[in-house]
């Protein structure tokens, strides 16, 4: 696109532009009072909505989800030695204290339901795949994973139900495997109804995962699996 004019303001608002088109349009925007006015209007239009009191617990649920990614990172404490070599993984920030991580994990319980509901969404135009995990022998329970490709990132959303209760520090840990090499991809503790959910996002190295598995780990933060696989599937 070489000629960016007012006509494109609608596409710009719809977020269908590439990075380059956005830049081009924003260049046009600098000098176009008409388009500036329209953009300004979008800061006012939502006030046409009837004010609705947000649900009391929504803030806790949402912020827990937002910060969850960091919690998962913080759990990568000391790598445990194991037979499988470690997959190469982008280092991430570690600024959470383990205490906050534990608190947030608890608050995750409340989120299980929201995510179970999310799993009712049908798959359509976005690059999304749904896979049902198979339980291992002697394990009762079911889990479903959604892999959502969004921009450059791969989001992994796991929702599980019918899970066995955990003891002590145990945790259900999700792993992504590529040719037998695992990386941790979110962890969760189930609620009293045996439901749990985990969310994880990979910003690099998003291709080629061939297996997803959930293990029951003796504690959170293992870089490599120690516990038994309870649910798994090929991707």
């Amino acid at each position, binding site marked *: 696109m070489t000629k960016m004019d007012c006509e494109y303001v609608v596409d710009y608002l719809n*977020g269908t532009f590439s990075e380059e088109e956005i830049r081009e349009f924003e260049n046009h925007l600098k000098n176009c009072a008409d388009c500036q006015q329209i953009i*300004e209007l979008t800061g006012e239009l939502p006030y*046409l909505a*009837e004010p609705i009191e947000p649900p009391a617990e929504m803030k806790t649920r949402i912020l827990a989800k937002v910060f969850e990614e960091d919690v998962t990172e913080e759990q990568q404490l000391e790598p445990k030695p194991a037979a499988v070599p470690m997959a190469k993984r982008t280092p991430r920030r570690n600024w959470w204290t383990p205490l906050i991580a534990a608190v947030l994990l608890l608050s995750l319980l409340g989120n299980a339901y929201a995510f179970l*509901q999310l799993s009712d969404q*049908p798959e359509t135009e976005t690059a999304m795949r749904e896979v049902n995990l198979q339980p291992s022998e002697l394990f009762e329970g079911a889990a479903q994973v959604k892999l959502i490709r969004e921009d450059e990132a791969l989001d992994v959303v796991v929702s599980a139900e019918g899970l066995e209760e955990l003891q002590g520090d145990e945790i259900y840990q999700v792993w992504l495997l590529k040719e037998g090499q695992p990386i941790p991809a979110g962890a969760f503790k189930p609620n009293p109804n045996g439901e749990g959910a985990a969310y994880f996002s990979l910003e690099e190295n998003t291709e080629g995962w061939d297996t997803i598995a959930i293990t029951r780990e003796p504690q959170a933060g293992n870089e490599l699996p120690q516990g038994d696989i309870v649910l798994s599937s090929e991707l």
Partner: protein
Amino acid sequence: MEKSSDFTLYGRIQQKDKEALEQLYDRYEKILFSFLVKMTEDPDLAEEALQEVFIKIWRGKGEYNESKGKFTSWLFTMSRNVAIDLIRKRKKPTVPLEEVGELVNNESTVEEAAEWQEQKEQIETAVQELSGEQQKMIQLFYFKGYTHEKIASICDIPLGTVKSRIRLALKKLKKSLHGVQERGAIDD
């Protein structure tokens, strides 16, 4: 002032300041939730959208800078697009078409925050100055997130004219709103 403080908060969020994100959340929770419920007509889906919005902000995706206009314009537009994505993915049938035309709801709650109420009244007045077709354009495009094809067929207009009609409706609305705000300022 509000603008610079939103911008400051956003800057702190880029530095992974959790408190800043919480402040931003508190500031916009209600308007965003109300807006998203209006769009999705489904509080659960609205919550899902709101969560997605804050995940995006936290991860620094779709970065804001001042060349994108006011922070609220960016925030609301981004939220709208998240909602549109979710609406298109959901199973439930969308609203029957008869209900779609109504953009202005004259019933207002008594205990609304004064600022919101004022802003709402101004924009409602401005909307009423638009033609019926223009109101419909804004409702279908902005709040329903319908595709141009769908808008063309609902309004029975050529597909090629949808974009420019939307743009003209938005432009007219902004102009009317400006007029309403100026009249309000004179009344004060």
